[in-house]
């Protein structure tokens, strides 16, 4: 597939020359520092997320959209789109997801709902790559149904006493601090939660590794985060008392559009790599790429990738200009997750036996992308949201 023209067309009007330059430099950086090490990290079973984050921070590429007064770059979400797309193009979502959780899931809540103490203690060091952030929302009894968290924050003078267990935390094994969603003992419903920042070394915090998973094998996923009477000062609360769930849900909406950008970039890269492979690989004397059926399969998916990408950019634009993003966010999260999985499935197949090797990038992408439809709002939750918005 000769898609250079399509890539130019897809980006026309959306990015500034400065952002194009950022993309070039980020790509170069990731190609030099991450791509060559992927195999070794996979064998070892972990990625050096802290080094990766410090490397990005040193070049001013973390928190590009946050205020300079908070340690950010004073830019816009479009720069985060560039980062998300460069991460996707790596086809290595242990890194992609790890950076995203840190930079686009927890950091935004600190920047937008954190008080001065939380900003100084967590956000500023995080944007310098020194404080690694994890996101602890899910529990054994609360996944899709976020509001059902049982972890309880009991108010006491000057703060909260936190008790409970969180499940599934990306980078949880190495994180320095966690954003924890907990319920208040007395309250029920949407206004009965708090979001608290918990340092990993606070007394009463214990992290346990997760069982092996299909994908995201080197993301340092914690299976359990045990919180046993952990004291959290008021200054480490994000958003108001009782507004934890609201703060959390508000953060999810724009983040899903950025995650969609990362997913679409994965799909884009998979299609390019597969087309290249089919041009090289010959059967019955002819490159497989010259056969109509596989070419049509890739072209069909290419059309979807380009269309969904336009929806993502439309959503980012609406977010940046202050419009409502709830509908577009749910739509693009749903479409990008399902589409990227379909792309990964097809590309895996078109790689033949080679694709079955678990060390092959297409194999890893197939495993990693399966999570897209489950995490940060499953497909079914996106459908629920869309249906609700429809009345």
């Amino acid at each position, binding site marked *: *597939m*000769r*898609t*250079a*023209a*399509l890539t130019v*067309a*897809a980006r*026309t*009007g*959306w990015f500034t020359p400065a952002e194009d330059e950022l993309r070039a430099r980020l790509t170069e950086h990731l190609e030099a520092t991450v791509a060559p090490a992927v195999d070794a990290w996979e064998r070892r079973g972990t990625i050096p997320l802290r080094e990766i984050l410090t490397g990005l921070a040193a070049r001013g590429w973390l928190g590009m959209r946050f205020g300079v007064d908070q340690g950010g770059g004073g830019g816009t979400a*479009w720069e985060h789109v560039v980062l998300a797309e460069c991460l996707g193009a790596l086809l290595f979502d242990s890194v992609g997801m790890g950076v995203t959780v840190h930079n686009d899931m927890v950091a935004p809540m600190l920047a937008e709902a954190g008080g001065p103490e939380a900003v100084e203690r967590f956000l500023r060091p995080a944007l310098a790559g020194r404080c690694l952030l994890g996101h602890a929302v899910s529990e054994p009894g609360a996944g899709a149904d976020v509001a059902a968290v049982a972890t309880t924050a009991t108010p006491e003078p000057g703060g909260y006493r936190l008790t409970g267990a969180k499940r599934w935390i990306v980078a949880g094994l190495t994180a320095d601090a966690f954003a924890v969603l907990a319920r208040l003992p007395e309250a029920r419903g949407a206004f009965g939660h708090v979001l608290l920042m918990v340092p990993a070394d606070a007394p009463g915090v214990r992290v346990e590794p997760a069982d092996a998973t299909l994908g995201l094998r080197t993301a340092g996923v914690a299976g359990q985060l045990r919180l046993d009477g952990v004291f959290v000062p008021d200054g480490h609360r994000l958003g108001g008392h009782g507004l934890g769930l609201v703060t959390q849900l508000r953060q999810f909406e724009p983040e899903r559009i950025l995650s969609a950008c990362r997913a679409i970039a994965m799909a884009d890269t998979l299609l390019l790599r597969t087309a290249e492979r089919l041009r090289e690989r010959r059967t019955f004397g002819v490159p497989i790429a010259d056969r*109509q059926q596989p*070419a*049509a399969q*890739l*072209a*069909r998916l*290419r*059309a*979807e990738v*380009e*269309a*969904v990408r*336009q*929806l993502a*950019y*439309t959503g980012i*634009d609406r977010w*940046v*200009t*202050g*419009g409502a993003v709830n*509908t*577009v966010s*749910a*739509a*693009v999260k*749903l*479409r990008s997750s399902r589409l990227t999985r379909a792309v990964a499935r097809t590309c895996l197949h078109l790689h033949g036996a080679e694709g079955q090797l678990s060390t092959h990038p297409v194999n890893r992408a197939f495993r990693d992308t399966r999570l897209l439809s489950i995490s940060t709002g499953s497909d*079914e939750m*996106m*459908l*629920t949201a*869309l*249906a609700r*918005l*429809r*009345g």
Partner: protein
Amino acid sequence: MTPVTPASVLATTVGSRCPEGAADVEFATRVDAFTDRHRDGLLAADAWESAGPPVRELLRAVGEAGLLRDAWADRGGDRATALWRAAALHRAFARVGNGAPGAALLTHLEVATRLLGVLPTTPAGLVPGALAGSSTSALAATEPDGGSDLTALRTTVGAGSAGGLTVTGTKWFISNAPYADHLLVLADDRDGRTGRRGPALLLVPAGPGVEVTTLDGLGHTGLTGAVALDAAPVAAVLAVGGHGLLVLMRHWIHERVMLAVRMAELAASVLDHAVADAGRRTTFGVPLITNQHVRFTLARLDADVQEVRAMAGQSLRLLAAGACPGGWAAAGKHRAAAVLAEVADEALQLSGGDGYRRGHPAERALRDATGLALAGGTTELMLQQIDRG
């Protein structure tokens, strides 16, 4: 029930990088006034289920309202403004009369008039007449023996009396042909009578030597015709031999983008109807829409519709900049056609027997969608085009 976000909401606010510029409220208001005025008359769905829908009357009315003229960029005119107005027109027409009148309007403005407008040898007066809505033309390329492969033309150029040229052959599935004053005929110039050999594009008045019969197709009721050309006199050579197909290749980028704009909105309109209907219908004592399967089906389609709308917007931006690759236009056209077909099929299903009734919005859309996956370039050809970039 909330309708799908109106396309105008995609329009710009300060600092926006969205393709769509500031909403052209004045033009949109005039379009709305037009569709409101003619909703129960010229634009009524029933009128477009007959073998003789009021195509000429509609074009005349749209022309007299100045809507065609104002959606047209002259050489050097503001191309972007005109394109977005044309898009607004096609979107509005996708939402009236089950979308059927919009098909005739799109053929008129974006196929025939557009081609005449870009070709230098078009006789004076034809384009102004088309923009006034007093005359229309049709592009006759497809033949019973082949549409995808237009190099295999059987229609040929001949010599007429008094040194003029003629064409002889058969065309079919020609949109608006039954209502056309002129045909733009693609014909093989085997003897180089136009100056060079190969496919030529010729302007043929609907008169002696031209016989048009309305086709009875699955969709596009009364809108397509078969054309028998028997030494029909040629009024002008629009593209000499060998250039006819090249002209059409360039033209199809434009046509496919506009088709995608219309199909995206048609899908949105059918989906809105389906959502409203599922809210009204009651089964097992509760509204149909309370069932999760139904809600999820509609929600999934809603996401698809948002996607093809966004794609169409970017395609318009690229078209306005003169930078739309053929592969991009093909991707947009194919995807919009696929989503329209899917929406129509599911919407019909969720309306049950009522949806199966002739003239139901989903039923009409399902029939039209089958034709839209062929017209303007088939799905298979679009996929090949995407592959080429």
